[in-house]
């Protein structure tokens, strides 16, 4: 279950999401790829009203 999602910036561009999970020491850095199922899960999580953290560059 997703805990938090944060935008990652690389050389000035938004390149991936950083995802943490409930009760897990695993994190994922998720590319902006629609065929990636972690990316799909983030979009679903956002559609359920959750908020992505955006700290800028």
């Amino acid at each position: 279950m997703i805990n938090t999602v944060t935008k990652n910036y690389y050389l000035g561009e938004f390149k991936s999401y950083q995802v943490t999970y409930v009760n897990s020491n695993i994190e994922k850095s998720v590319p902006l790829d629609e065929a990636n199922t972690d990316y799909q899960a983030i979009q679903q999580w956002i559609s359920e009203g959750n908020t992505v953290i955006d700290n800028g560059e």
Partner: protein
Amino acid sequence: MAIDKVTTASITDANITTAKLAYDAIPFRNIIINGDMSIAQRGTSTASITGDGYYTVDRFSLDLDTLGTWTQSQSTDVPTGQGFAKSLKMDCTTADGSPAAGDKLIFEQAIEGQNLQYLKKGTSSAESLTLSFWVKSNKTGTYTLELLDNDNSRSFSQTYTVSSADTWEKKTITYTGDTTGAFGNDNGNSLQCNFWLGAGSNFTSGTLQTSWGSKTAANRVSSSQVNLADNTSNEWYITGIQLEAGTSASDFEFLPFDVNLQRCQRYFYIHANTNADEIGIGGYYSSSQIFCDFQFPISMRTTPSVYITTGTNYFRIFRNGAIDSFNSLTFGAGNVNMFGLYNNTEVSGTAGHAGFVRPENSSAVIGADAEL
């Protein structure tokens, strides 16, 4: 019979069966990957499972919605004399004897559509599918096995019975071909093989859909479905899962370990997981940013996620006679063949210095995840 009497006419086609041939006539006939449970890159045991995810054996995931707490492990308890070395074990550690309507527990594998085109689904020539496997549980009774067509939202459920407690039993179920709804010829999740282990009334209250048809939640699971979560003494083992075209089950197709591993690595790959491992060559792009690339052993299904454990000084870069430690690496660029990773929050060095990037902590893990 004299040799010159052996002709096409004297041996009928029906009598030439796979079992009589001295070799596997149809290599890679098993649609299921890692059906013998031999590959477990993530680890061999995970406790306190309460939600969805991939935990131990490769390519198999859990769809778990508030129905007990579980330990999943790769087990050496296997059916005798069948050639299997490993099985998958589900062990209930917190019971839920009264599932809410939407609760469910499914052990499943998702399959890419481009691996299924020869089944000719959605045509008048659609192939039947036969699923065979070995199962053992203390919990006897009826279980549901569902094929789910995600491209066309169609499903087909049948049941099997665990007849004898704590005894390995082989089960074989045939699903007739579906003349409606073709699988997408792509890398998406077209077909799921769903082993139901428990379900709430949302999935059991209708009439079990025992032929291909539009997916209807209430018809997905037998009303007699066992609730494996109803007691902490419950265990369920499975191995030898084979899904193949046709109406009969052939012997399980054992693959060499390296071939099986490579098939799994299309979806998930552990690159480094101890403090003695290498990650790759890197360098300082600027005084506060390092980069590091590594390649995957085979092309992955799609651009993967970085799968990583993070913590204080879990990673380090050896450069110019010094060592700089940092906590994590992040996806900066990549494709199905390699990652370009970076850290720009915890390092300080000299732009242009190159180095070796390595884990520093025995709990550090980094990999690539392109699962379905």
